[in-house]
């Protein structure tokens, strides 16, 4: 039976999410039959998300709070929750689909040796740009940041007719300064924290993709816990996940308000513009299906959305 569980995340130390994880750790410590201490490595000190997964595979780490970008290193099925632009219209839709898909996702992860203890989202990725953007044509004249390690996204953006520049996250701000890039799709929280909004002061309120993630533990560790302990662990994790999602939705609003005070211009999405964006991205879906997102997962997400919208 494990004495100590080590968990890594990119989340910053002292953030509200870190706080929620610490509270969860305290509940785990007091869980019946366990006496397990939880060590949390924040700020990516254990490496990026892919590296965190590698460290879990060799049992240096037992857990990770990861976004879809990291979870897809375990199984690509998770991409159905985040990779298709504009497939979700509201965060309620995101939650509905996520909850419905959970049994299937949990099973896929389990087959790969991992157990998901909570799922959640941190709101929408919006588009921040140097010149105002309302329609797709406005963005096509600007150079768009795409994470270099995500070659699928790079190809997709190029195919959509955008000038995609593959770059690292750390080079984003300088890239905006030198003119290597003009636009960055990111969450308001990161736009504020990374000060991207100072160089790209226009935000399009587009529901581009949600930022989805969750807590996973290696099955080896999980299976070694007594059943009573597992129940207590799962419950504490669920609570932490709910708390983190709710807090990050609030922080998204707060970040936008704070940036507005310092000069951020927000463009609302008009219905005709929305149709244009939707037509563009839906044209890419055949390309996404079976390549970026496994076909069965792609179909299931669309089926669930039709079901929800009825």
């Amino acid at each position, binding site marked *: 039976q494990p004495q100590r569980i*080590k968990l890594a995340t990119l989340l910053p130390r002292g953030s509200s999410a870190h706080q929620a994880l610490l509270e969860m750790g305290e509940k785990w410590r007091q869980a019946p039959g366990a006496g397990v201490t939880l*060590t949390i*490595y924040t700020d*990516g*000190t*254990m*490496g*990026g998300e892919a*590296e965190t*997964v*590698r*460290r879990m*595979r*060799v*049992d*240096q780490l037992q857990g990770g709070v990861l976004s879809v970008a990291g979870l897809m*290193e*375990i199984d690509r099925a998770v991409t159905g929750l985040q990779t298709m632009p504009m497939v979700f219209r509201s965060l309620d839709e995101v939650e509905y689909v996520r909850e419905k898909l959970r049994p299937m996702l949990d099973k896929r992860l389990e087959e*790969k*040796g991992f157990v998901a203890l909570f799922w959640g989202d941190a709101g929408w990725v919006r588009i921040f740009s140097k010149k105002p953007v309302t329609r797709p044509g406005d963005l096509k004249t600007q150079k768009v940041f795409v994470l*270099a*390690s995500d*070659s699928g996204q*790079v*190809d997709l953006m*190029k195919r959509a*007719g*955008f*000038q*995609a*520049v*593959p*770059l*690292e996250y*750390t*080079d984003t*701000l*300088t*890239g905006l*300064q*030198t*003119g*290597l890039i003009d636009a960055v799709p990111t969450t308001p929280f990161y736009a504020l924290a990374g000060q991207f909004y100072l160089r790209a002061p226009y935000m399009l309120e587009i529901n581009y993709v949600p930022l989805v993630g969750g807590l996973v533990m290696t099955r080896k560790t999980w299976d070694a816990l007594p059943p009573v302990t597992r129940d207590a662990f799962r419950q504490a994790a669920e609570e932490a996940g709910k708390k983190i999602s709710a807090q990050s939705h609030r922080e998204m609003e707060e970040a936008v308000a704070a940036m507005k005070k310092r000069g951020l211009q927000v463009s609302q999405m008009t219905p005709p513009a929305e149709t244009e964006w939707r037509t563009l991205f839906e044209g890419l879906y055949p390309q996404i299906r079976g390549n970026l997102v496994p076909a069965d997962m792609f179909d299931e997400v669309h089926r669930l959305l039709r079901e929800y919208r009825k």
Partner: protein
Amino acid sequence: MKLENAIISGVLAALIVLPILEALLRKTLHVGISGSAALVEHLTLIVGMVGGAIAARENRLLALSTLGELLKGRAGKLAGVFGGSCAAAVSALLVAAGVEFVRAERLSGEALAYGIPVWVVQAIIPAGFGLIALRLLWHSAGSWSGRAAAALLAGAWIVLWSWSPMGALIALGLATVAGVPAFVTLAGVGLVLFRHAGEPIASIPIAHYSLVTNPALPTIPMFTLAGYLLAEGGAPQRLIQVFDALFGRLRGGAAIVTATVCAFFTSFTGGSGVTIIALGGLLMPVLLARRYKGRDALGLVTGAGSLGLLFPPCLPLILYAIVAKVPIESMFLGGILPGVVLLAATACWGILSQGPGESDTEPAFDWTVARRALWQAKWELLMPVVALGALFGGFATPVEAAALTALYALCIETLVYRDLKLTSDVPRVMTECGLLIGGVLLIQGVALGFTNYLVDAEVTAHAAEWATNTIHSRWLFLLALNLFLLVVGCLMEIYAAIIIQAPLLVTIGTAFGLDPVHLGIIFLANLELGYLTPPVGLNLLLSAFRFKKSVPEVLRAVTPLTLVLAAGVLLITYVPALTTTLPRWLGR
């Protein structure tokens, strides 16, 4: 042998071509090469491991101590077998760790590009360490009986060390003094600590893999290749002519020439010691002819050999940017003014130490000579403009700018100056460059494994907490930092120091409200001094080697200049504006 050289030349060529093609296609057709970034990253992994194997083949892996070479006769043979056995044992354990890593990765079934599974490329890590282990055994003795003894001893170490961690650390300490490669010491300590803590040793290759496949890392082999092509072409002579024509007639002119030429070179070759080897022999006569005493000239060449470490696109700047997660461009801009400070300090000392004499016996400044020299070297002088123009002009990512610079250097040395032949010289220079990069990346990879142990054992987090609780003023922290880095500089090799110390320092420094770019420049400026301080001072060793002097003799010669440079480092530390002004100005 030929195969390895061919592989490394081919891969370096691909590293030049792929990023440039990607940039061009993006610019013109709005398309690109699918999976280009991942390909380039894994090509860097291949350069690192093959280069490391070549360095082992040539017995040129960087060592921390040269004692082993000084020992003669029986003692020398014993030191060789003992060091070789420890080094082979560590390498064999790295093979085991690598296999563990690759096996876990294989289960993930991830593809790199075009259907090639990632684990196939990752398998080059254990394969490379296996080859290195065999070659370390080969070089451990001149006879087959000696090699067999080393192999047996290596097997015994693996058994004994798993049983007694303390014994392992003592053996590694002795082996380090005997002159084993630096990566052996770092990896050995990491392996022992991970095993003692009950953690998987595969943690080390995971860190190694992450570092070497970092998307920004391909800049390092590319800029270094550009520097090597210059050094092996006729650039040293042409550049000395230029700076001599411009500054040679001034008081202390020869010192200014030495400092500027060295800085120009080091900024491309990465302070790897190439500068002293390539330029030392050419600069020494210039200094002696201008009434410098032999000792002062030796001091100047030795000290100037590390100038330029703070100028873009120097390798330590890039490495720090990667480890500390700050933009490469900010480090490049931040280093310029502090680099000028150290350059000026060297020039001032040069002016003061020039011997007495009639300055009017020398010919006056000749504009025709200067113009001819400038015209001759114009393509080489333009190289920083190409590198930085591509980067700050907004049309290239750091990797693309580095590839462009390498291509530019290749073109001017082979086509314009014709100092290098494309078919014979260029592969040789590429192999040489690969050897250096391989040696450096081996050290960095395993050093990052060691750093990961410090993170894992929460040493980093606790040290940061301790520092913020104990030291209350930022100025006191900076003073403590200077003293600490002085010791680090005396003892550690610069690349290992960056990987091991930088994450810790950034954590602590941020708690004191220090700018991470300023912190990085302080760090590198201190390590620049470390090149000149015993016992681990690369420039002292190289200068002693190049000019056939003893290390204490070189040390005596360079110490006055070291003190002057130390004053410059203090200025850089306590005047943050020197560092932060240029990056801020760009940010407007």
